[in-house]
């Protein structure tokens, strides 16, 4: 139960524990223009991986909680993938910002993560 705070508060207490979930990409004004439905049928992600995804990545990547790039937001995913797929994969394995190492998927193999990244980015594999 952490209260969200007025922005001015962060001028002093930048790293406070009291982070809110207000950073969702869904709140940005051009969200509607950027969002593309995820290309479910074109992406090589089998039912087993999809089930793992829905129990882990989906927690944040559907709503964009804590700044997570939203599934199907191809522009944002392409921006991140410009660093190379391995860099994005390393973020998953090591954790990045509020995403923990392995992205809450303790059951995922590295190949699963690759498929999930491609799926969320809307890439054909």
């Amino acid at each position, binding site marked *: *139960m*952490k*209260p*969200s*705070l*007025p922005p*001015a*508060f962060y*001028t*002093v*207490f*930048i*790293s*406070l*524990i*009291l*982070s*809110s*979930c207000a*950073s969702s990409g869904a709140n940005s004004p051009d969200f509607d223009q950027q969002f593309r439905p995820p290309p479910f049928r074109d992406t090589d992600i089998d039912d087993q991986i999809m*089930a*793992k995804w829905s*129990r*882990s990545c989906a*927690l*944040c990547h559907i709503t964009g*909680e*804590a*700044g997570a790039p939203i599934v199907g937001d191809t522009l944002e995913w392409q921006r991140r993938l410009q660093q190379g797929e391995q860099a994005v994969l390393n973020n998953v*394995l*090591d*954790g990045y*910002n*509020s995403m*923990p*190492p*392995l992205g*809450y*998927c*303790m*059951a*995922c*193999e*590295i*190949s699963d*993560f690759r498929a999930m990244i491609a799926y969320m980015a809307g890439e054909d594999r």
Partner: protein
Amino acid sequence: MKPISRRRFLASSVRAALFGAYAAGASAFAQSAAWSNWSGGQRCQPAGRYDIGSEEELTSLLRNTLGPIRPVGSGHSFSPLVPTDGHLVIIDQLSGILDYDSETSKVTLGAGSRLGDLGAQLDGIGQGMINLPDIDRQTVAGAIATGTHGTGVTLQALSAFITSLRLVSPNGNIMDIDSSDEDMLHAVRVNVGALGIVTQVTMQNRESYKLKKREWAAPTEDILANFDELAANHRHFEIFPLVYSDYSLVLSIDETDEPIGEIEIENEPSDDASIAESLGLSDNPTPAQRRRQSNATASRIQATESVDLSYKILSNVRNSRFNEMEYSVPVEVGAECLREILKTIYDQQIEVNFVLEYRYVGADDDWLSMSYGDHPHATISIHRAASEDYRPYFNTIEPIFWKYGGRPHWGKLHSLTHRELTQLYPRFGDFIQLRRELDPQGRMLNPHLRALFNA
């Protein structure tokens, strides 16, 4: 597929030989990443990770492998509960609502369900959890096993709302435990994953409900002077004391029928605000300057109110990762303990960028609960960013908790040993005896637990 080095392959082969390979049912991983907890502070490279799809797979795994087994949920424990060189058991697939009763507001859940997934699902059947922790990414099994709690002087830890559970013992036997054996239920709810693996639980909920949250800033001493009364008058009440400051952020939550929404309440800045304007913000403030700045900033915080469904109010998302230490102390000495921590941070000029957290938790009867007993406990949490070394800060503060009879949260960092824990938890010896009976070989132990339980 990324190649595996010869050295790594040989190491894996040796571990598999030592701990026993498992051939049937649940799948082991061909290309595993190292396991790490949420903060990154705990790591291991288990010999096998098993993604359990059913209780049958789990019983088969337990009966057909040798060596250490550790269950893992969401990895939100900061303490080394999980790390193992043996087998890691994942129960994510054992999730979701299995059964429910609208009359009694009880629900039976797969123990691998994540708390954050349950809110909407439960609302769909007209139910809401009685309380939630402020992070809701944990699995039900993990939250219960570690004694995870929310806030509320009359509201107990999550484990206390479990009316029955199914435990698969280390030798693969299925045990259904409910209130017909109350002592056993109190023993196994907070189990730190040392008694077996919980596969399903029945949870006492209530009808779906809305909560109204109010947040504001106030002088810490003003709040502490009336904390008992405030805690009694609100369903949830807690403060987040600002370090180097006389202020706390205050949070109260109560049930409401008001419509869902959020409003900001205009408040008059106190004199502290004008002090800040005249001071300006310096880059390298002394503790006294920092206190004035913090007070001034805090005094300008506007109160806000919001109304939403209970699960949306009670839990929050974190934008950064950290490590945490949390102890419970008797409420009678809670404020004194908090004051000493704040004074120590100030006097020793410990660099802290997180607020503290101070709240009450209701008493319960679970043997390893940090709120075990007849009276509620005050809990105090301290945090350090995951990227920073937490040890100097935590090592300085932890003895203060001990001085006030503090009991550690099992999922958070502490350095207590078997000897102290035996003094702090009246049923600790009974738990150790039960653990020995269920797991004479100590399969469910890792080095951390082996030390705690003197095994």
